[in-house]
């Protein structure tokens, strides 16, 4: 167990000083520390290191927790069966932008009441939404009308989530009701009139519905229409205290089919909006069709259609029976069209006026509505020349409500469109430039990244972006994601998640471009890059299923792309990278044989390679050979693994020679030398310790140099500890005394690393293994007391680690090995009782290891255990030998020397 840094008393002291120092600044703080920590440098260091982290803030910790919370798995299900107030929730009826509507029931001795309860959706309790809900409750309590669904009750849950209890209307949408009953035109109008009056009533109470559609006008069995879901009601009078809490723009959770032009444009609304929506409903009610279809339109097309398009007359709707068309022609046409005018000031002044005109029609009296005159049609001419972008700009740069003076606005809009185009181009180009030349300071880098992403996000939302630009945006996201995924500086918590988001967006945007049917030659590359990068991050984060989807997508795209032009080296390179990516995934999935095939496929595409091949290709080939080697080390034959490693080292030597200051290449070369050394000389190796030693020395030289280069780099230290350990492993068979020294050196470094990060699981595992190896080597040289103490340390360290972690197969394997070594050493120390206990403990772990991966590593560990037991458990010696032999059969077949 790692000892705590300080004793409780010392801790009190540290705390005191820390808090006092926090109050002071600059020189005063330094002076204070001088006084209080005189002669106690460790104390001062402790306080200072805490002070350095005092500004950390709560954000990091909070985000860790909510990150975890957001990853909780969730099968789809409904949140029902609870009680809200005296009502029991039965089922979910509907789900809107910010709330959920449940069917609920209240029952007591005398009667059962069925209601609809609208509740803010859990998890969405942001201030604004809660306020909105509260406001709505208040508003609706004021609305009492036979054609508006009544509010029965309201309240707040214990935690301040407001809910509204409403009359439950079981009925049909008005259009369906009319269709089912085959109502005549007159009957339909008569059904519609009370709806208009109800809307007008609400308008007089300063409430706009904002979301009138057939689904919100339900007709009961008795034929009464009722208006529902004043869900996004807005107050007209701004001075009412409730209105202060509401935002005007905010979430526009409406159906585009029924939205008025001003809603689409995001302008502020008036009662006229509802008139428009009523007009659409009326159109549908009379003709059975919608005045226009908004399905599958891009936002800019939609806008154009609703805001500037001509309206077809109801009577001219395709497929209308002649009689109906005749009936609609003339006055009814005009009434509907008047309600549907794109300019709000030209519609009916109120819902009541609409109702009155309809009544006049029913009574055969002249109506107010007039046909569209040329004067007004001319006004529309200018609007048609707005480009989609200009209209979008209007949203971005909050346009004033009210009448639009066509000519001037149109000119301004055009100028802004040009500006926008320039802005788009500059952001995208700038992104790529900036990201390749990042400044050093972490804060600036972070701010730049954030800014870039925000710009990209805004851009990506624009309607009508050409595919070429989409591709550039996708690439920019990839660039950003790469930078976010890099670990630079300290405390980069959670950046992988951000990188993931960027890559996801990159894929989204790339696919958007593809969906537009673009035949741009660069498109496949952009797409596959996005998928590949996304897959890599997903793999890193452990989301293997999604990684597989994206690796597969990338690979398929790469195959097609390469096949289209096999002589292009870039395409070859990409295809190889994708084969390799697939193989990486398969390793993680445990499909080692498949990964071997894919690495080989990758290499097949890259070869032939020589010193003249491009750097990128050589690097990729090096990685593939190396990984191939590791995979083969796992399943055998070892000779093939050795071949692969040799090929990797040849390539890497070339790279190091050509680019001597590249640390990355050196590290990779070192890794490969270690690989070769282990395959040749470790106990699970081919039995050529002499050659192994040569390679190990080469690896050590590089590792020592790299560690010296940057003394604060923990990775380099960890590598060095690894190399020492590996050297020990190679020496362990023939020269255990020397091996002990190497192992002890690695232990020392690992202990140093644990000082820095006591919580690290990897270091603790490494330490456990290294202690075990020391113990084993000491045992072989007969230095029993030392062997015992290290064996115990190894066992205890691993047990403590396991206690604080969930069971993992590889932990069990390590612990088992520790027990075996301990048993062996105890046996040598003549502690038969102890040896027996250790043996049993090891045997308890057999199941886990035996049931685990079917690879040479497990075979070897078990074989060793059996060998040990055959020595110490004389009674069952022959059984152990037999089991050991079984394992060795496989090992020898793969080329391991016994």
């Amino acid at each position, binding site marked *: 167990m790692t000892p705590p840094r300080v004793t409780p008393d010392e801790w009190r002291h540290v*705390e005191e000083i820390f808090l006092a120092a926090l109050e002071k600044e600059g020189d005063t703080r330094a002076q204070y520390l001088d006084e209080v920590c005189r002669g106690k440098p460790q104390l001062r260091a402790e306080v200072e290191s805490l002070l350095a982290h005092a500004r950390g803030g709560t954000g990091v910790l909070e985000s860790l927790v909510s990150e975890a919370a957001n990853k909780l798995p969730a099968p789809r299900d409904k949140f029902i069966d609870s009680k809200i107030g005296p009502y029991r929730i039965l089922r979910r009826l509907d789900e809107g932008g910010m709330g959920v509507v449940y069917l609920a029931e209240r029952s007591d001795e005398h009667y059962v009441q069925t209601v609809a309860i609208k509740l803010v959706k859990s998890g969405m309790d942001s201030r604004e939404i809660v306020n909105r809900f509260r406001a709505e409750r208040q508003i609706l309590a004021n609305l009492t009308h036979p054609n508006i669904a009544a509010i029965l009750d309201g309240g707040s849950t214990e935690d301040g989530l407001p809910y509204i209890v409403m009359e439950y209307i079981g009925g049909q949408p008005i259009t369906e009701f009319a269709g089912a009953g085959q109502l005549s035109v007159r009957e339909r109008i008569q059904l519609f009139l009370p709806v208009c009056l109800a809307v007008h009533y609400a308008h007089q109470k300063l409430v706009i519905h904002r979301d009138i559609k057939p689904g919100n006008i339900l007709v009961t069995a008795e034929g009464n229409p009722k208006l529902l879901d004043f869900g996004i009601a807005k107050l007209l009078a701004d001075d009412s205290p409730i209105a202060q809490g509401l935002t005007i723009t905010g979430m526009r959770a409406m159906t585009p089919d029924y939205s008025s032009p001003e809603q689409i444009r995001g302008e502020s609304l008036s009662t006229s909006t509802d008139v428009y929506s009523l007009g659409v409903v009326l159109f549908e009610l009379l003709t059975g069709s919608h005045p226009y279809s908004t399905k599958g339109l891009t936002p800019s097309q939609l806008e154009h259609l609703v805001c500037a398009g001509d309206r077809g007359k109801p009577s001219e709707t395709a497929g209308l029976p002649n009689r109906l068309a005749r009936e609609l022609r003339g006055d009814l046409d005009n009434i509907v069209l008047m309600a549907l005018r794109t300019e709000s000031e030209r519609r009916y002044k109120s819902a009541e006026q609409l109702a009155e005109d309809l009544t006049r029609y029913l009574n055969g009296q002249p109506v107010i509505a007039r046909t569209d005159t040329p004067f007004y049609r001319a006004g529309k001419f200018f609007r048609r020349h707005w480009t989609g972008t200009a209209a979008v700009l209007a949203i971005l740069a909050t346009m004033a409500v009210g009448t639009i003076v066509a000519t001037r606005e149109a000119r301004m809009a055009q100028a802004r469109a040009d500006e926008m185009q320039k802005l788009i181009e500059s952001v995208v180009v700038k992104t790529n430039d900036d990201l390749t030349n990042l400044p050093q300071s972490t804060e600036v880098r972070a701010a730049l990244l954030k800014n870039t992403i925000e710009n990209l996000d805004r851009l990506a939302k624009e309607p009508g972006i050409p595919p070429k630009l989409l591709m550039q945006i996708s690439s920019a996201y990839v660039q950003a994601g790469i930078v976010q995924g890099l670990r630079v500086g300290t405390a980069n918590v959670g950046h992988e998640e951000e990188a993931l988001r960027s890559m996801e967006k990159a894929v989204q945007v790339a696919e958007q471009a593809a969906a537009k049917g673009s035949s741009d030659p660069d498109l496949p590359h952009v797409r596959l890059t996005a998928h590949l990068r996304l897959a890599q991050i997903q793999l890193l984060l452990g989301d293997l299923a999604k990684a597989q989807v994206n690796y597969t997508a990338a690979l398929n795209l790469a195959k097609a792309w390469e096949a289209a032009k096999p002589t292009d080296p870039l395409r070859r390179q990409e295809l190889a990278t994708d084969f390799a990516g697939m193989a990486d995934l398969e390793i*993680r999935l445990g499909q080692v044989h498949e990964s071997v095939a894919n690495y080989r496929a990758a290499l097949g595409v890259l070869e032939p390679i020589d010193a003249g091949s491009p750097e990128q290709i050589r690097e990729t080939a090096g*990685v593939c050979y190396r990984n191939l080697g590791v995979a083969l080390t796992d399943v055998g034959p070892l000779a093939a693994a050795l071949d692969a490693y040799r090929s990797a080292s040849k390539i890497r030597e070339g790279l190091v020679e050509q680019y001597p200051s590249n640390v990355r290449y050196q590290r990779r070369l070192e890794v490969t030398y270690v690989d070769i050394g282990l395959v040749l000389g470790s106990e699970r190796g081919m039995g050529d310790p002499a050659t192994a030693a040569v390679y190990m020395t080469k690896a050590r030289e590089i590792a020592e140099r790299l560690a010296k280069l940057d003394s604060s780099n923990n990775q380099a230290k960890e590598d060095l500890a690894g190399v020492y350990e590996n050297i020990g492993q190679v020496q362990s068979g023939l020269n255990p005394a020397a091996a002990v020294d190497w192992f002890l050196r690695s232990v020392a470094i690992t202990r140093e690393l644990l000082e820095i990060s006591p919580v690290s699981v990897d270091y603790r595992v490494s330490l456990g293994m290294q202690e075990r190896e020391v113990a084993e080597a000491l045992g072989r040289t007969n230095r029993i007391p030392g062997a015992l103490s290290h064996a115990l340390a190894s066992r205890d360290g691993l047990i403590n680690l396991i206690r604080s972690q969930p069971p993992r197969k590889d932990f069990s394997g390590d612990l088992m090995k520790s027990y075996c070594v301990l048993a062996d050493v105890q046996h040598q120390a003549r502690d038969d009782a102890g040896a027996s206990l250790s043996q049993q403990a090891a045997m308890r772990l057999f199941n886990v290891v035996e049931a685990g991966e079917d690879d040479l590593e497990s075979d070897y560990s078990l074989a060793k255990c059996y060998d040990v037991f055959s020595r110490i458990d004389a009674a069952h010696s022959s059984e152990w030998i037999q089991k050991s032999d079984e394992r060795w059969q496989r090992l020898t077949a793969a080329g391991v020397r016994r």
Partner: protein
Amino acid sequence: MDSDITAILVEWKRGDATALDRLTPLVYDELLRMAKLRIGGESRDVTMQPTTLVHEAYLKLIGHNRLPWQNRAHFFAIAATVMRRILIDDARRRNAEKRGGGLKITLNEEMDAPDQKPADVIALDLALQSLASIDERKSRIIEMKYFGGMTAVEISEVMGVSVATVGRELCVGQAWLHRELAGSDAR
């Protein structure tokens, strides 16, 4: 279920301090169930806060039994511990297997960024355990704040210290945790 809780609450009001502990398994079940109902098909823009779950669990379990805010605080303290456990269990379950033993060098060299995986809630949990071994109270307070979403006043009620003390404990504890997490990060 309802009557169990009511009974426990009654006993607690009567002064049986241990009664609340018996709530723990009920709280666990409820939180876990609710945690599993979370997210899934919901809009991806909504960030789920674990404290929301805690509040909802409260609603479910205690609901209309109007408890004074002090008792609510104790409930949240329990829920915080439970929540932490749920999140850690889940995070561990999710963690990919690493290849231990023998060859320790990372397999997937394409992803060979100079450093390694970020601190996650497991690291936080371990760090909290380490903190607890030095100073139990701070660990508890931090757990209540971050996993239970409790306010300083509520925490002070449960821990029996002043609000100012809670503030100081948080300050020191957070700095300590930051250091701890930064250290494991910069390997």
